[in-house]
């Protein structure tokens, strides 16, 4: 406190006033006092919230409703589910749908984003400007609008099942979704799948071994092509040698809709494309900034050492650019996962629409349901950021 007040109050309570002002003027005690007050305020705040909730709730707080039948249908289910399944089951379906669209969105957005970033850096004026116009349009319009727009276009411009577009053999594009043949693997098909997994494992080990050899002797193996051969070519050859051991369940037009096969619904397509196209614009700018952040001297030095253009890109530019790209990229991945909750607006049944939407409305258990939904999103965010932090630590600059 200022000296003035201390002097004024001297006559009334001099000793005490001095004590308080001394406490306040001491840095250490002041910080303790502020923290105690803050803690007390927070405690009071939460206590009053809980107290109010207890007073307002005329029922107990319980998760028993999760075991009761959900009584609603879900249009896209990757695990078994019908309207007699429990709310818990509906939640699992929602979680899987969220993770599915988030994963697909992350993959597609990354690919498109890197393409956009490179186009944006291209010396070609026309492609550069096309990428610029695209990025500016997409970034300045809300994602929800993109989702609704795309959903509207898909539903209204695609033909009815009766005159479906036959995009490929056995695949039909209609306004009810993309109907595709469903593979029914015969037992021997598992051998091909096993080969594929073995190929991935081999590529991984081979890469490590090749790096070791290169470190010791300087000999360079064509790691990329050998990996491609192991992962793709060998299983494909095995597939044909074994006589294509897959039966196909092709969709057929029955009545007003297709039966059989598998279907990618327009809701999923709209959400997936909108999420990817939207986030790709942001990733494109991130990639551009990352590549621009690598100073030109690095490329020139590499060229001066006689390293080829492709290797320069692979060994000099990209590793350095990735260090700048990865942290913001991680937050874009988090954004895709969280933005997938906009599925609600077009009726894609993700975790917000199932447990946080219909289940909530049916049971009236708002607090319980919202706690589950928020907890799940926090968990997803935590998992993704842990993974990206691990990756970031792996590629970051190793300093002394």
């Amino acid at each position: 406190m200022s000296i003035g007040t201390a002097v004024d109050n001297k006559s009334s309570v001099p000793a005490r006033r001095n004590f308080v002002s001394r406490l306040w003027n001491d840095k250490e005690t002041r910080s303790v006092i502020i923290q105690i007050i803050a803690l007390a305020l927070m405690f009071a705040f939460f206590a009053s919230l809980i107290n109010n909730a207890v007073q307002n709730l005329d029922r107990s707080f319980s998760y028993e409703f999760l075991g009761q039948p959900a009584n609603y249908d879900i249009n896209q289910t990757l695990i078994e589910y019908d309207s007699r399944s429990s709310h818990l089951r509906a939640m699992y379906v929602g979680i899987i749908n969220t993770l599915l669209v988030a994963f697909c969105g992350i993959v597609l957005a990354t690919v498109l984003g890197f393409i956009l970033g490179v186009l944006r850096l291209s010396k070609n004026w026309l492609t550069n400007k096309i990428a610029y116009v695209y990025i500016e349009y997409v970034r300045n319009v809300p994602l929800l609008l993109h989702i609704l727009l795309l959903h509207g276009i898909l539903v209204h411009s695609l033909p009815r099942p009766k005159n479906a577009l036959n995009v490929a053999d056995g695949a039909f594009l209609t306004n009810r979704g993309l109907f595709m043949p469903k593979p029914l693997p015969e037992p021997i098909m598992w051998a091909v799948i096993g080969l594929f997994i073995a190929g991935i494992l081999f590529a991984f080990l081979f890469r490590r071994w090749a790096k070791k050899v290169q470190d010791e002797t300087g000999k360079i193996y064509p790691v990329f092509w050998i990996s491609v051969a192991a992962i793709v070519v060998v299983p494909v050859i095995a597939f044909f040698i074994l006589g294509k051991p897959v039966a196909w369940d092709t969709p057929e037009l029955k009545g007003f809709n297709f039966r059989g096969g598998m279907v990618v619904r327009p809701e999923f397509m709209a959400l997936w494309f909108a999420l990817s196209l939207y986030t790709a614009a942001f990733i494109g700018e991130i990639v551009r900034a990352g590549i621009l952040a690598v100073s030109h001297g690095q490329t020139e030095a590499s060229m001066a050492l006689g390293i080829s253009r492709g290797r320069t890109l692979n060994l000099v530019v990209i590793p350095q650019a990735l260090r700048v790209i990865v942290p913001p990229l991680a937050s874009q991945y988090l954004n895709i996962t969280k933005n997938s909750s906009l599925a609600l607006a077009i009726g894609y049944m993700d975790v917000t629409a199932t447990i946080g939407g219909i289940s909530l409305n049916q049971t009236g258990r708002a607090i319980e349901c919202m706690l589950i939904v928020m907890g799940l999103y926090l968990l997803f965010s935590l998992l993704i950021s842990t993974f990206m932090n691990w990756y970031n630590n792996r590629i970051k600059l190793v300093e002394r």
Partner: protein
Amino acid sequence: MNNATNESPPKYELGAHPDLPPPFATSGPIKWIRENLLSSPTNIVLTVLAVFFLYKIIPGLASWVFLDATFDAASRNECRELGSGACWGFIKHRWELFTYGFYPVDQRWRVILAFLLFVFVVVVLLWENCPFRKTLRWFAIGFPFVAFWLIVGGLGLESVPTDKFGGFMLTLIIGITGIALSLPLGILLALGRQSNLPIIKYACIGFIEFIRGVPLITLLFVASTMLSYFLPPRVEFDLLLRVLIMVTLFASAYMAEVIRGGLQAVPKGQTEAADAMGLKYWQSMRLIVLPQALKISIPGIVNTFIGLYKDSTLVIVIGMFDPLGIAQATLADTSWQGPSTEVYLFVAVFFFISCFLMAKYSLYLENKLHTGHKR
């Protein structure tokens, strides 16, 4: 001199020959095309692909949007008779709904007045050479109260319930309030996160990470369904107010992270120097640290503003009628049922213009405040 070129070559003294024009192929548009479109085989391929792409897209789009489109029709059926392209007739018939929502017709002058005042305040705040800027800035402080009084009513004006708000007006209300409140809150949270006091620090970290970990939609659900449980019995909060609080809290967490980046970029020596000068905590923050930190974080701050502004569309999921909500209501109307593309594109244009302007202003501000050495 000019005539000389046609006649016999004139004699020049040494060094007095006028400059010849550069060769045709290395100047002007030809040079530009060669350098920017045809400089290498990859470049040529890209150009051909881009031209093909544009050729596929542009004519069809132009005829759909303008040439074959109908601008003056009372319903979708009338549109179909008049042209094969887009049907923009709904704009003329419904623009009032798109602008004001369900705000009473005879009270709309209040919204217009508030908007004009807002434009005035923005001009005063953003235009440095504005006459009487110092005096007028005081008006900017009073503006929120005046605008609140004008739009909500009371004190002599007829009061309008907030569920009548809608359209672009609602977007602007949520956007402007959120932007104005989330910046100071974000600064406080960022400072709290950097604080030496562990309790304050961890409270801020907890808040920021929680908000950043959940989607805005769930927070809006909390605002619309759950919040009433946590308030004392018989205390009613207006839904718009609850939404404003949630949107502000949401944006302030992101803002805090952006500003934290700026704070971390300010060298520690600056704070130490301020301490050595005997400045108190708030003085050193206000005078030394924050001006530098905020300058660095301008792009991030504006990005958060734009994000908040765009996120205001999410209020349709809890039943408020922002432009998207009005668009959906339009599509539910029997006379405008059908393809939704035009209606959504119309709303998209509104958002594009406002967000693009914000982004451009941020670029201008960055350049203006860039006082360091430019390369």
